[in-house]
């Protein structure tokens, strides 16, 4: 663990980590890839907003309205700075990462940028939220969906490259929520550029755990979600290149996204407003702003280093267990803090249940990544995932719990 990084100190900010569960057992929360816990600072910011500054934004001209607007827009500024966006107007607030990805897929279709005969490239390790919108777009347009494969080790298979001259969009996850793999997105982006394709990066698992610089990255769109980065639920982010956003048609129609509305027709506002119909997630932007402050305070380099160290420790300890198979890279190299595994002869549900009886929270199932599970010949896995508050002692508890599970089921 990095010397500067004091996990015990960090844990004090997360009251839920003191929770006692059934049997007065302490909570061992190893489900952060599903959603992260929230520090007191974030909850306090939301509170203060509702109790002292609540009003609707933009359209209100009074003092409270100015305060609420300032808080809401400051959230946008903080997010923009956090991901090093060249302009704060490039940050579009959505309800979650899924909406962000759907937004891109819809408007690219509506704009005629994906048509019959064109190709869309995704990968077999995508989350359903980065699969289904593209399947829907293919169905609407007649475009073909093509897939990057996965190597047996759990890496993106760059050798068999599905990108062709007909590729119009490449949409790839940066960090896999199931395999844990950190993909070489720069390489994919460079390849996409050669054929003039647009690139969408699903950074839902990346922004929470590695320093992100969208300007340097060079993608066209980046999607992520607040609830996985110590922020509130109910808000996600689509970052997009400004010139591209400015060209694209709107997504949802309604208040806030218009320039003018007449009975004959409507004209639309500039980005980001064009893509934010209706009352936006105001308190959630304030909360996300506080989350970003919190992460910045810790230092994303430190967060990444901690994630790396704890993952290495977990891999080492878990691989000692007989009958345990890690689905995904076995080395803590280019690897995020999600470890999916199977135990011989025991169904993942039963593993998760036994662990839960000891206060250890993991996830069992397909983790919204059915195609990847199919590829590895498993219907479901158990996944333990770590974050900035995870300790080695928690990994030890997990390992003990797994051994206990094996004993219980006589496997």
């Amino acid at each position: 663990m990095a010397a500067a990084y004091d996990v015990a100190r960090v844990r004090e900010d997360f009251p839920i980590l003191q929770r006692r569960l059934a049997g007065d057992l302490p909570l061992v929360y190893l489900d952060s890839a599903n959603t992260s816990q929230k520090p007191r600072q974030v909850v306090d910011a939301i509170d203060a907003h509702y109790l002292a500054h609540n009003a609707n934004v933009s359209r209100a001209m009074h003092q409270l309205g100015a305060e609420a607007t300032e808080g809401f827009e400051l959230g946008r500024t903080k997010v923009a700075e956090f991901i090093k966006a060249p302009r704060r107007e490039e940050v579009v607030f959505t309800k979650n990462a899924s909406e962000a990805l759907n937004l891109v897929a819809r408007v690219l279709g509506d704009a005629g940028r994906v048509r019959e005969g064109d190709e869309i490239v995704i990968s077999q390790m995508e989350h359903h939220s980065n699969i289904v919108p593209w399947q829907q777009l293919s169905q609407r347009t007649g475009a073909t969906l093509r897939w990057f494969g996965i190597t047996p080790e759990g890496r993106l298979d760059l050798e068999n490259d599905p990108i062709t001259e007909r590729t119009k969009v490449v949409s790839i996850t940066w960090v896999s929520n199931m395999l844990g793999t950190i993909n070489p997105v720069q390489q994919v982006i460079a390849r996409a550029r050669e054929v003039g394709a647009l690139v969408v990066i699903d950074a839902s698992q990346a922004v929470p755990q590695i320093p992100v610089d969208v300007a340097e990255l060079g993608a066209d769109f980046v999607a992520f979600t607040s609830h996985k980065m110590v922020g509130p639920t109910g808000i996600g982010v689509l970052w997009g290149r400004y010139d591209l956003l400015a060209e694209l048609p709107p997504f949802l129609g309604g208040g806030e996204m218009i320039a003018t509305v007449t009975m004959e027709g409507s004209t639309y506002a500039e980005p980001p407003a064009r893509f934010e119909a209706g009352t936006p997630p105001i308190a959630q932007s304030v909360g996300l702003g506080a989350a970003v402050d919190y992460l910045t305070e810790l230092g994303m380099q430190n967060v990444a280093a901690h994630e790396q160290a704890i993952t290495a420790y977990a891999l080492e300890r878990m691989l000692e267990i007989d009958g345990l198979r890690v689905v995904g890279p076995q080395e803590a190299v280019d690897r995020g803090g999600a470890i999916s595994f199977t135990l011989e002869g025991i169904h993942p549900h039963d593993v998760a249940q036994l662990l839960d009886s000891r206060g250890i929270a993991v996830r069992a199932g397909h983790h919204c990544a059915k195609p990847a599970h199919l590829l590895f010949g498993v219907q479901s896995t158990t996944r333990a995932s770590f974050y900035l508050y995870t300790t080695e002692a928690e990994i030890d508890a997990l390992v003990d719990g797994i051994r206990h599970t094996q004993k219980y089921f006589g496997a």
Partner: protein
Amino acid sequence: MAADAQNMDALYQEIILDHYKRPHGAGLRDDGDAEVHHVNPTCGDEITLRVHLDGQTVRDVSYHAEGCSISQASASVLNDLVVGQPVDRSLQVLDEFQRLMQGKGQVEADEDVLEDGIAFAGVAQFPARVKCALLSWMAFKDAVAQATGKDQA
């Protein structure tokens, strides 16, 4: 509920583990009157299930299930309880099983009706597992409705 989250033996009764390890009537057999495929979207557990009728009698229920101990054991118990029964009776058993599972652990089940099925009483205390126990039963209900030409209720 708090204490139950810890009590694994209430959930994993011996009877359940036995059915899990040696499921009754597993495998898909020919000439079913209806075949259905059900999925538990939460976890991806799946079952393909066929009902084989003989007039008003359930001659066989054959199935291929992938899933956890609870869902597999439940399919095995289903097979035990409904094969050879009149269709009406099988649906009564289903109702009773469903009542037990959705009773949050507050419901007394009729052992005469459910036999080994009462071992699932403990599952009812684990809301996340109720779906596992009901997967095969809901598939059965659906298949019977199809086989007898009624809409799924």
